[in-house]
Each structure stands twice: as structure tokens, then as C-alpha cells.
């Protein structure tokens, strides 16, 4: 009976998963940060499921939309700077997607 345990494989899983999660969450968060900077604060519409819970009330959604519009109006940035921030935001989202795609391709080609 052999009880050899490949501890390196566990470390590999931890590091690979950590790297993937940090890349995806990091780039996505950066994208959101830049999107806000560009004056395009993401606002999700109200959602409600009758036999479960109210996710966002109409009132909350309206309040969020109003705050977002106000923040966009009061932005100290020039139109050009906002444009750059928006491009940066979409690039960050793209990087997050690329990180996922890269991970999946690694799994497929290592198989």
C-alpha cells in the first residue's frame, strides 16, 4: 500500500486558483473603478421575485440612478480624460475575460 502524497499538486492548485481569481477580480474591479471615473456608474434595474425576496426595490434603483447622474454631472475630469477612463475600463473587462479564456485553454490543451 503506497501512501505517497503529491503535496506539490495541492500547492499548484492553490497558486493557480489564487492567480486566476486575483486576475479576474482585480481586472474587473479596476474596470468598474475606471467606469465610475468615466462618469458611467453602473446601475442595475429593480428586480423582485414574488415567492422569494426583493432584490432591489424600485425606490432604491431610482436613488442609485439619481446619485450616478449627479456624480457624472459633477465630474472634475475633462471629456478626453473621461474617454480615456472608459477605454481603460473596457480594456480591464477584456483582460478579465482573457484571463478566464487563458485558464480554460490551459485546461483543454493540458488534457
Amino acid at each position, binding site marked *: 500500500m503506497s501512501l505517497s502524497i503529491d503535496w506539490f499538486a495541492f500547492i*499548484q492548485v492553490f497558486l493557480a486558483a489564487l492567480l486566476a481569481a486575483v486576475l479576474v477580480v482585480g481586472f474587473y474591479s479596476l474596470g468598474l473603478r475606471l467606469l465610475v471615473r468615466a462618469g458611467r456608474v453602473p446601475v442595475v434595474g429593480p428586480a423582485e421575485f414574488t415567492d*422569494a425576496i426583493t432584490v432591489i426595490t424600485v425606490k432604491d434603483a431610482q436613488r442609485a440612478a439619481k446619485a450616478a447622474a449627479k456624480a457624472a454631472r459633477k465630474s472634475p475630469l475633462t471629456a478626453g480624460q473621461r474617454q480615456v477612463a472608459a477605454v481603460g475600463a473596457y480594456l480591464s473587462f477584456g483582460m478579465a475575460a482573457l484571463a478566464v479564456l487563458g485558464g480554460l485553454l490551459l485546461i483543454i490543451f493540458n488534457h
Partner: protein
Amino acid sequence: METATLIVVMIIVLALFFDFTNGFHDTANAMATPIATGALKPKVAVLLAAILNLVGAFLSTEVAKTISSGIIREDQIDPNAFLPLIFAGLIGAITWNMFTWLLGLPSSSSHALFGGLIGATIVGAGWMAIDYGVVLSKVILPAILAPLTAGIIAFLATRLAYAMTRRYDAKPDGRDGFRWGQIFTSSLVALAHGTNDAQKTMGVITLTLIIAGWQSSADADPQTWVILACAITIALGTYMGGWRIIRTLGKGLTDVKPAQGFSAESSTAATILASSALGFALSTTQVASGSVIGSGLGRRGSSVRWRTAGRIMIGWLFTLPAAGAVGGIMALVVAWLGGWGIVIDAIFAVVVILTIFLLSRRNAVTAANAMSEVAESGTAVKVTRNPPPTRRQRAALRAEARREKEASK
């Protein structure tokens, strides 16, 4: 039809039924969080989960190989005696799975499967028929380490997400945007689920085919029709089980914020996919639960409710031996009664499945008996409504207080 052929057919049918219940059980693991935070509508979420489970089943076969050529030493067992043992093990797994589902007890489909197979093999073929090195390194250690890994990663990812989007000027922080991101990450969890869980059934069917002599033991890869059948079955189970998600929403995930949900799902998907690539057979439920707890702790001012966390963990600990015991009893019936034992086991399986199905129809589905330990793990972390300020916020408050003091002088 020969007896051996009949048993092989029965095992394949039972294994596919297990695959179906696995999908049925686990839809919520992927899709409960995005529905809870309003990122996806339930019907869309369920359909998406089903499609991605189907696709995920084709990504890798490492986990299937672990099961078909690692855990059990087929070369040390008489093939004719071993087929009924796989059958008994599957009945043990399904019985335990459905029993815990009916009672709302925390469990893991994957560990029920391993427990059932190991228990039946030990009883029917002896202790030496199991490769404990593989069981320890590919099943038990991943079961302990994977939720921990997912929890630590989710903790760090949540901290990162909050730190990167935090604002100190009281303007909107844009964290609502994580709801859209959750469509993406929950899809990844569904894909990862298909990659790891569908393979477990592929592994059992492949093991059966090898034992029956219908596939060479030198090539432990699942055949294409096996991959296709398992992928379709898990996707179907995911779709059929999806409507129950709505019932679990009020239970524990209402406190999960979009940034937290996004981080938890990223961590779950990353951990499962990385593990699948290396052939670790994980419980996706446990990984998802670890992530939800870790991401909850990643929020400022949070603490663990040890009683709830302990209840979930005790449920996990019991799954493997309990399913093993049921599988062992089923194998004992086969060992004592031979062919009649198989018939009795088959009748038992049908009776258990029908009884539990009828009981579940009669009793109202509530958050307590529906499913999703992941939703329950959301309640294992207590998050304060007013979290303590960050270092920078404290500095700003101190500066403001100083200014006010100077102004009053």
C-alpha cells in the same frame, strides 16, 4: 441477455440516474448567488447553468481517470464478483443522497458516490481492494483542503474587490456593476461543475466497462458515448432541479453583496477548474460553501457563526462513512445471497427512490428541505450593518475632528 450484461446495463442506468440527481441537487451552487443579488432571472439562470454543465463535461477527463483507474484495484478483484459491488455502491450513494436531500441535511453527492463505492468494495472484496494512497491524496485531502483553499482565495478576492472600488468622497462606488460580472462568474461555476461532477459518473461507467472487459484497462479514458450521455444527463438534471433555487433564496444569501458574490464565484470556479485539471475529485458544494464563508469574512466587521459552520462541517464529515455504510450493507446482501441479492438491491433502490420522491411531493418544499448548503453557509458569517472604518477612513475622521477643533478655537 447474460447476467453480467444485465448488471452492466443496470449500473449504467443507475449511474446516469445519480448524474441526474447530482445536477438536480447542485444547480443552486452556481446560480443561487446571482439570482439572490438580482444579476440573473431564475429561468435564464437555470437554462444557462444547464448549457454550461453540458459544455463543461467535455473540457477534461482527469477526474474520470482518477475514479476509473485509481481508487479501486480492479486487478485484485474477480470481475464477476465486482460488478454487483459497483451496483451496490451506487445504490448506497443514491440512497444517502436522496435521504439527506429529503431531510435537508448537509451532504455532498460526490462523497456519497465515493463512500458508496469504497464501502461496497471493502465489504465485498476486502480491505486490500482499495488503494488508500489514491483515496487519501485524490479524495480525502482535496475534501479538506479545497474548501479551505476556496475560502482563503475568496477572502483575499473580496478584500481586493472592496479595496479597489472603495471611495472616500461619498460618490457612488459602482459596486452595482458586480451584478453584471456575476453573470460571467456564475456561468464559470456552472462550467466548472460540469467539468468535475459529470466526470465522476463517467469514471464509474468507465470502471464498469473495464471490469466487464468491454474496454481495455490500459486506456482509462471515458469513451465518447459515455461523455455525451453523462453531459446530457447532468445538464437535464440541472435544468429540472433549477426551479427549487428560488425557494432557498431567503435562507442565507440575502446578505451576500454583489462584490462578495462575484469574488466567491471567481474563487469557486478557479478552485474547481484547477483541481479538475489535476484529477482531484472535489465536492463542488463544499468548495462553493467555503467560498461563501471566506468572502463573508472578507467584508469588514464580519465574524463566523461557529454553530452554523460546525453543523455544515459535521454533515460533510458524515457523508463519506454514512454512504460507505449503506453501500457496505448493499454489498453484504449481494455477498450473502448472490444473484438474489442483486435483485433485492435493485428492488430496494426502486423503493427508496419512489418513496423519497413521493414524500418530497407530499411535503411542501421549504428552505429547510429543498437543498443548497451553499445558501446555508451564507448564514455562517455574521456581517455587521455598520462596519468599522478603514485605516484611511479613520485618518480622514481624525483630520476632520482636528479641523473642527481648530475652527472652534
